[in-house]
C-alpha cells in the first residue's frame, strides 16, 4: 500500500511536472511571438482552468483549446466574413452617392503609404474609382512616393505643397471626389509618434474636416501596425484609438519572421480588430485578415 501511494505520487509529480513544462513552453512561445506577458498569462489561465474542468490532458487537445480561444479573441468586432476558405470584408466600400472616406494613420515607418497603394490597387481591381490624398505634407519625398504608386496604378492623387496644411488637402480631395463621382478616397497621413500631442491634434483636425465636409465620420480610420514592433504597438493603438476612434488595423510586413502576436493583446484589451494584412513588397500583397491562418502561425 505504502509503495502504491509512493508510486502514484511519483506518477502524479511526473505528470504535474510535464504539465508545468507544457504550459511554460506555451507561455514562452506566446511571448516570443510578442503577445504580452499579461495576455499570455490570461489566455493560459483560462484554457488551463477549462482543461481541468473538462479533464483534458492530451497535448493536442489542449493546443486546440488554445487555438479556439485565440481565434475567438481575434474574431470579435470584425466584419470579416468567409466564403468557403477565403475571408473577405463585408461592405468595405458602400455603394452610395458620396465616396467612402478612409484615413490611414500610424507611427513612422510602419508602411502606411505602401498599404495605401495596395488598398488602392485592390479597390481598382474591383472596379472602384479610387482617389488618393497626399496628406503627409511633412516627410521629405512623401508626395513623390505616393505619386509614384498613383502613376503605376493610373489613379489621381490630390496634393498641395510640402509643409502645407494637411486639413486643406483633405478638404480639396473630398470636393474633388464628390465632383468626380469617386467611390473611395484613401487619405495618406504623415507618420507621427503617438506621444506627440500636437501631431495627434493635427489628425483630429483632419477628422473634423471630414466630418464637417461630409456630415459623417470617416468610413474607416485604419492604423498601420508593423508586425516587427513589439509591445509598443499596444501603446500606439491605444493613443490613436483614444484620439480618433480607430475602426481597425492593417498589420504590415508579415512576410518577415515576426508574427505580430501583439494584435491578440490589442484585441483583448481594446477590441480594435485587424482588418487587413500586408505580406510583401508587391502591390498585390494585401489580404483581408484571417484569424484562423494567423492563429495557426502562432500556435504551431
Amino acid at each position, binding site marked *: 500500500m505504502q509503495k502504491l501511494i509512493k508510486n502514484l505520487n511519483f506518477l502524479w509529480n511526473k505528470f504535474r511536472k510535464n504539465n508545468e513544462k507544457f504550459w511554460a513552453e506555451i507561455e514562452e512561445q506566446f511571448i516570443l511571438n*510578442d503577445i504580452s506577458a499579461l495576455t499570455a498569462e490570461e489566455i493560459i489561465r483560462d484554457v488551463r482552468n477549462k482543461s481541468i474542468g473538462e479533464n483534458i490532458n492530451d497535448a493536442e487537445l489542449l493546443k486546440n483549446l488554445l487555438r479556439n480561444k485565440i481565434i475567438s479573441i481575434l474574431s470579435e468586432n470584425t466584419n470579416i466574413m468567409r466564403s468557403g476558405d477565403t475571408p473577405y470584408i463585408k461592405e468595405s466600400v458602400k455603394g452610395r452617392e458620396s465616396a467612402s472616406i478612409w484615413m490611414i494613420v500610424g507611427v513612422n515607418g510602419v508602411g502606411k503609404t505602401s498599404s495605401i497603394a495596395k488598398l488602392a490597387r485592390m479597390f481598382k481591381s474591383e472596379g472602384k474609382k479610387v482617389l488618393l490624398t497626399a496628406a503627409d505634407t511633412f516627410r521629405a519625398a512623401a508626395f513623390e512616393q505616393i505619386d509614384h504608386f498613383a502613376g503605376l496604378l493610373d489613379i489621381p492623387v490630390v496634393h498641395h505643397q510640402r509643409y502645407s496644411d494637411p486639413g486643406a488637402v483633405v478638404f480639396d480631395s473630398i470636393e474633388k471626389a464628390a465632383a468626380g463621382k469617386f467611390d473611395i478616397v484613401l487619405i495618406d497621413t504623415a507618420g507621427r509618434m503617438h506621444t506627440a500631442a500636437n501631431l495627434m491634434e493635427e489628425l483630429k483636425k483632419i477628422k473634423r474636416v471630414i466630418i464637417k465636409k461630409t456630415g459623417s465620420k470617416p468610413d474607416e480610420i485604419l492604423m498601420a501596425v508593423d508586425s516587427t*514592433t513589439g509591445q509598443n504597438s499596444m501603446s500606439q493603438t491605444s493613443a490613436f484609438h483614444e484620439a480618433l476612434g480607430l475602426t481597425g488595423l492593417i498589420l504590415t510586413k508579415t512576410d518577415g*519572421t515576426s508574427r505580430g502576436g501583439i494584435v491578440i493583446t490589442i484585441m483583448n484589451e481594446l477590441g480594435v480588430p485587424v482588418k487587413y494584412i500586408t505580406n510583401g513588397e508587391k502591390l498585390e500583397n494585401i489580404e483581408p485578415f484571417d484569424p484562423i491562418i494567423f492563429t495557426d502561425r502562432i500556435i504551431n
Partner: protein
Amino acid sequence: MFELLTSKFEDLFYRIRNRGKLSPQDLDNALREIRLALLEADVNFKVVKEFLDSIRAKALGQNILESLTPGQQVVKIVNEEIIGLLGQSNSEINFSGRPPTVFLMAGLQGTGKTTATVKLANFIKNRYQRKVSVIAADIYRPAAVVQLSDMAKQHDIEVFFKPEADPVSIAAEGVDFLKKRGSDVIIIDTAGRLHIDREMMEEIKNIRKKVFPHQIYLVLDAMTGQEAVNIARKFNEDIEFDGIILTKLDSDARGGAALSVNHVTGKPVKFISTGEKIDEFEPFYADRIASRILGMGDVLTLIEKAEKVIDEKKARELEDKILKNQLNFVDFIDQIKSIRKMGSLDKILGMLPVKNKSKVFSGINIDDSQISRIEAIINSMTMQEKLKPYIINGSRKKRIAAGSGTSVNDVNKLLKQFSTAQQTLKQFSRSGKNFSLPFNFP
C-alpha cells in the same frame, strides 16, 4: 524613452526601499516584477531569463537578505546588470588613417535608415568638422533617393546617386567619385531589407565586399519586438556590423530590443535617434540609460545638452538659483529660450529624475506652441514683476494681459505654472546638490 520600464522599476524599488529588510519572498516578488517589466519592454524572453538568473545569483551571493539596506543592494545589482547587458559605451568615431572613412547603413524597412544616414552625416560634420557626403543606394523604395537628397541638401551634405545602376555599383562608384571630391567621410544609405530575404542580403554582402566600409551600422527601431535578436543575429552573420543605431526613442518606446540585441551579438549601441529634427541624434551611454531605467532620470544627458546651449557659467548660476529656490521670470525666459534650443519640453522633463513624472509635471504642461505666448506675457512685465512675481496683483495682471495681447486668464495660468515649476525644482534641490539621486544610493 524607456518610460514604462522606468516606471515599473520606480514603483518596484520604491516598495522595496521602504521596507527595512528583504525576505526571500521579497526577492522572488521583485524578480517576478522585473521579469514582467522587461518582457513588457520587449527584452527577449531568453535574455530576460539569463538576466534574472544572474540577478538572483548575485543577490544571493552577496548575502543580500541579511544586508542592512537590501533594497539598495538590489537596485545596485540590477543597475550594474543592465549596464552589463547594454555593453561598453563608446560612440567615438575612429577615422581611417587614409580618408575617406566609409560607413554602411543596414536594417529592415521603416527603421529610419535614411533619416539616420543624414543625421549621422550632420553629426560627424558638426562634431568633427569633416567633409561628409552620402550615397543613395536604395533604388527600390519609391522616392527614397529624393528623400535622402532633399534632406542632405538642406544641410549642405553632398549626395551621390546614379540612375539606372545597381546598388553595388552605385556604392562603389560613389565612393570613388566622392573620394576624388575630397570627402573625409562617406555614408552609404541602403534599402531596407528583411533578414530572411536571401537575394537582398546577398546584395548588401556584395556592397560590403566591394567598398570595404570601415564601420557598418545596423539601424534598429527601438520599438522592435522579440524578433530583434534574430534580426540582429542574421545581419551580424551576413555583414558583421560594428554597432547599432537605435531609432524612434522619442516615443514611449520601451527599447528593450537594445538590451537583447546587444546581449546576443555583443555589438554596442552607438547612437540613438530621438526625434524628427536633424539634431535629435546623440551618442549612446549605457550607464545613463540604465540609470534612467532605474528611475534616476537621465540627468547626465540633460546636463550635456544644456551645456551645448547655455554657457557653463550661466548654467552654474542657474543651478545655484534652483537650489536656493530663487528662480524668477528673468531666468525663466532665459531658460525658455535655451530650452527651445534643446528640444521639446516633454523630452527635457522626461530626462529628470522624478518619480511619477506625469503627476508632478501635470501642472506645467507647456505646449511648445504656447511658448511664444508665454514669452509675450513675460516681456510685458516690468523688471520688478519679473524679479518678484509675487507682487503681481489684479491690476498688474490686467496691464500685462493688455500689453501682451493675451487675457488675464492666460497670465494667471502662467503664474500658476511658474509656481508649480518652482516647487518641482525645489524637490530636486532637496535631494542635494548636482541633482543627486532621489534616494540614497549605496
